């Protein structure tokens, strides 16, 4: 009709030129796919934004995933094969017979990141180790109070009372003096949190008065160096060219922050992400020819924590009643699709300290009703449950879990309001201030030692850092933990932990729900091991073909 035979040549020519220019523009950029940037980059769709770029200052798994293994190294690390402690920045170490003095011998060939904002002049030496630990131990240290002065992991394991002194023997030898023997000390140094920062960078910042930049524009020795961070949107890392281990195979590592789990799946299917965290629709992924699904058994627990400082949960009977009224088996089937075990206590069955005699709270509406009446709430009560807004290995869908609990508790007359509208960093800040009544949260262990399940989240020390979301403190419980750390005899320790677990089972500051597996999906062309049973994701061995 009109369009096919336009007669005015002027218009036609104009349109023709514009069209051909456009086509030229578009076609000019075809054909150079070989050297394309995306072939040398890995995009990881992460579930949330990091709170800091220094793992010393946080405990959240999201931040650890984003930062710990990518930017930093530790003195010692867990070997992937057997979870034994092996060398890292320290090539060897020596523990005296009384267990109170530990000497580390450092590698001499470790270089720090060179970035737009920092150029290192020397390799790693003892000063960096001293700086990294003194910062969190010594309140008078110039960097101690930067970023809030909280070092939740170290404070919760009582690091500052444990370490008496750190001494520089020579440039490449450091000695830790402990106030008492502690069987979990080496394991704590190998965790994601015990990273080594650059003392030289800190000096440079201090001279310029920019102390706070140390945790925002990080410098470390890890396989990747920091390039940029856009809040809530992305983190960009480049390869660290002088990494002391094997050269990293890819040029660029990008974290695409995608809180929605369906959006992550969509991006994986639409080839916008190479690897995604906490995938949903497992069958869909396994069926797809280009995708693989991986799982690692990780040491974790998901729990319903009660704020024991606030009514009604300052009453032990109410906590017990709730514990009896929740059908954990149903949660495991609906939320974890059976890929998890019912948590009988805080410790997973695979931990050596697990005690079969502790059976936890069964599902019993009658007991729950009786307890609730005994507590003075025969007509029930109303409570808030805060559901964590991100997916974690220990709970892939906290909101649905909260809804299941809501339905369970309805049966004993408890009305549940679900609070789920905060973004992760706000959520975590409000929790630390104790604004919740009950919260669905969890914990992933940082190392195989059972102490890691107790001290960081339930000790009195962790209450002060706000990491003890139950705000529960029991000196008797703390004492069992302390005694267990005093000895290296496993049988002794197991006895103490069994006592501690009994207290938990009676007091119920939190109700363990499930121990799950951590999942991850990726495109088949992305190779290398990414997940460890403990702690965060590690991209140092990744390659793409």
């Amino acid at each position, binding site marked *: 009709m009109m369009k096919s035979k336009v007669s005015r040549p002027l218009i036609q020519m104009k349109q023709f030129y514009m069209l051909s220019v456009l086509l030229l523009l578009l076609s000019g950029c075809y054909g150079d796919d070989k050297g394309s940037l995306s072939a040398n980059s890995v995009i990881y769709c992460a579930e949330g934004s990091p709170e800091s770029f220094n793992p010393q200052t946080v405990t959240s798994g999201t931040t650890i995933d984003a930062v710990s293994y990518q930017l930093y190294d530790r003195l010692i690390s867990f070997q992937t094969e057997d979870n034994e402690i092996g060398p890292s920045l320290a090539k060897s170490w020596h523990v005296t017979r009384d267990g109170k003095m530990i000497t580390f011998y450092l590698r001499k060939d470790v270089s720090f990141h060179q970035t737009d904002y920092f150029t290192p002049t020397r390799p790693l030496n003892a000063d960096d180790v001293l700086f990294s630990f003194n910062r969190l131990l010594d309140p008078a240290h110039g960097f101690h109070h930067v970023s809030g002065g909280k070092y939740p992991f170290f404070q919760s394991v009582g690091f500052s009372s444990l370490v008496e002194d750190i001494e520089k023997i020579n440039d490449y030898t450091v000695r830790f003096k402990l106030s008492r023997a502690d069987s979990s000390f080496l394991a704590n140094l190998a965790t994601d949190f015990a990273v080594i920062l650059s003392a030289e960078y800190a000096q440079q910042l201090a001279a310029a008065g920019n102390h706070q930049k140390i945790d925002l524009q990080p410098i470390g020795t890890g396989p990747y160096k920091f390039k940029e961070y856009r809040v809530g949107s992305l983190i960009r890392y480049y390869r660290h060219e002088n990494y002391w281990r094997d050269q990293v195979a890819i040029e660029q590592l990008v974290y695409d922050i*995608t809180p929605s789990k369906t959006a992550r799946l969509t991006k994986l299917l639409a080839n*916008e992400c190479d690897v995604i965290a906490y995938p949903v629709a497992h069958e869909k992924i396994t069926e797809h020819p280009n995708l693989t699904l991986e799982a690692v058994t990780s040491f974790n627990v998901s729990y319903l924590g009660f704020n024991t400082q606030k009514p009604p949960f300052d009453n032990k009977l109410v906590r017990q009643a709730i514990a009896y009224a929740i059908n954990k088996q149903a949660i495991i089937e609906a939320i974890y699709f059976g890929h998890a075990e019912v948590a009988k206590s805080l410790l997973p069955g695979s931990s050596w300290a697990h005690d079969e005699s502790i059976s936890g709270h069964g599902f019993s509406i009658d007991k729950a009703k009786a307890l609730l009446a005994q507590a003075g709430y025969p007509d029930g009560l109303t409570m808030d449950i805060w559901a964590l807004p991100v997916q974690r290995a220990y709970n892939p869908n906290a909101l649905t879990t909260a809804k299941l609990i809501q339905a369970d508790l309805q049966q004993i007359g408890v009305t549940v309001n679900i609070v789920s509208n905060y973004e992760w960093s706000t959520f975590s800040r409000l929790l630390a201030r104790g604004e919740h009544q009950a919260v669905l949260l969890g914990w992933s262990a940082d190392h195989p030692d059972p102490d890691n399940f107790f001290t960081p989240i339930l000790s009195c020390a962790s209450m002060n850092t706000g990491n003890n979301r139950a705000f529960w403190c029991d000196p008797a419980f703390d004492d069992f933990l302390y005694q267990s750390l005093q000895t290296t005899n496993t049988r002794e320790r197991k006895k103490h932990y069994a006592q501690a677990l009994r207290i938990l089972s009676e007091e119920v500051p939190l109700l363990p729900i499930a121990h799950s597996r951590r999942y991850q999906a990726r495109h088949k062309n992305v190779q290398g091991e990414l997940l460890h049973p403990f702690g965060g994701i590690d991209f140092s061995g990744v390659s793409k073909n």
Partner: protein
Amino acid sequence: MLVFIIRRLNLFFFTMLLLTLLTFSLSFLFPGDPLVNLSGQINATPQQLEQLKLAYKSDQGIMQQYFAYLSHLAEGDLGLSMASQTQITSEIINLLPATIELSLIALMLAMFVGIPLGFIAAVNHRKTADNIILSVAMLGYSVPVFWLGLVAILVFSIQLGWFPSAGQLSLVYEIEHVTGIQFIDILLSDSVYKWQAFRDASAHIVLPACVVATAPATIFIRLARSSMLAVLETHYIKAARAKGLTFRQIIFRHAVRNSLLQIIRHIGLQFANLVTIAMITEVIFSWPGIGRWLIESIYQRDYTGIQSGLLVLSTFIFIVHIVTDFIYAALNPLAREHNHGTS
């Protein structure tokens, strides 16, 4: 023309006054302390609160408070976002260009598709082509945008894999933020991967722009059709026909131009509609624009964010209105003489 300009500026002034009055009163209507709602300072120390009280004059009369608020606005200070505790002004400056880019491209798309189709329908009045175009327009107008967006992702990104489903640009390309309009930034950047990035950005905008453009395009079809029909009925067209001009000459020389003029008047009105659609589309396609940010603010009860986002978006739409009015007036001398403006 002078009267026209003065009338428009007058309108602008009073609308802005009403708008700021609305956002100002919102801080009292939202739960919580009005001062905190206005400034967004949720963790302020007592000293900081004192300073804020002074700055916002909250111990004085309501008029003084309003003028203090206005002076803060005039300085470009919209307060802090309650959720992220960063300056809202800088967040908006970062996000608004992405929305402008998406809306403008969608508007262009809607016009370039909708208007010619409308003309074709008018020329073939009451024939098969007309009926088909009208039914397609009706269908496109009735489809809800959130559904269309999801189906587009399902079909074109997941099943066919032609276009990406989220964002403005693949994250591997590092393009410096200069203007905020992605295409301009890419052309300005000195990255060696510039052309790869340009292609990637074009692929990213296709789906969201088409989704946003669908509803306005159908409106343009109907507008173009009715205005063309009206023009074809006029006497000068009849005269031209009587003079023996061919059908094509009549359409391209006279009818198209005159009916376009009527359509331009409606672009401003359509723009508000388009931005609303773009807000929903931004959420679906994770487009880093102000609409998504505003919806997130609502979810997080970021009152300062809601208030400022509302103000900025409305101002933006209003400015577009006025600009189209001016364009219309410049093109159509008759409109300038009109004493009673159209919008």
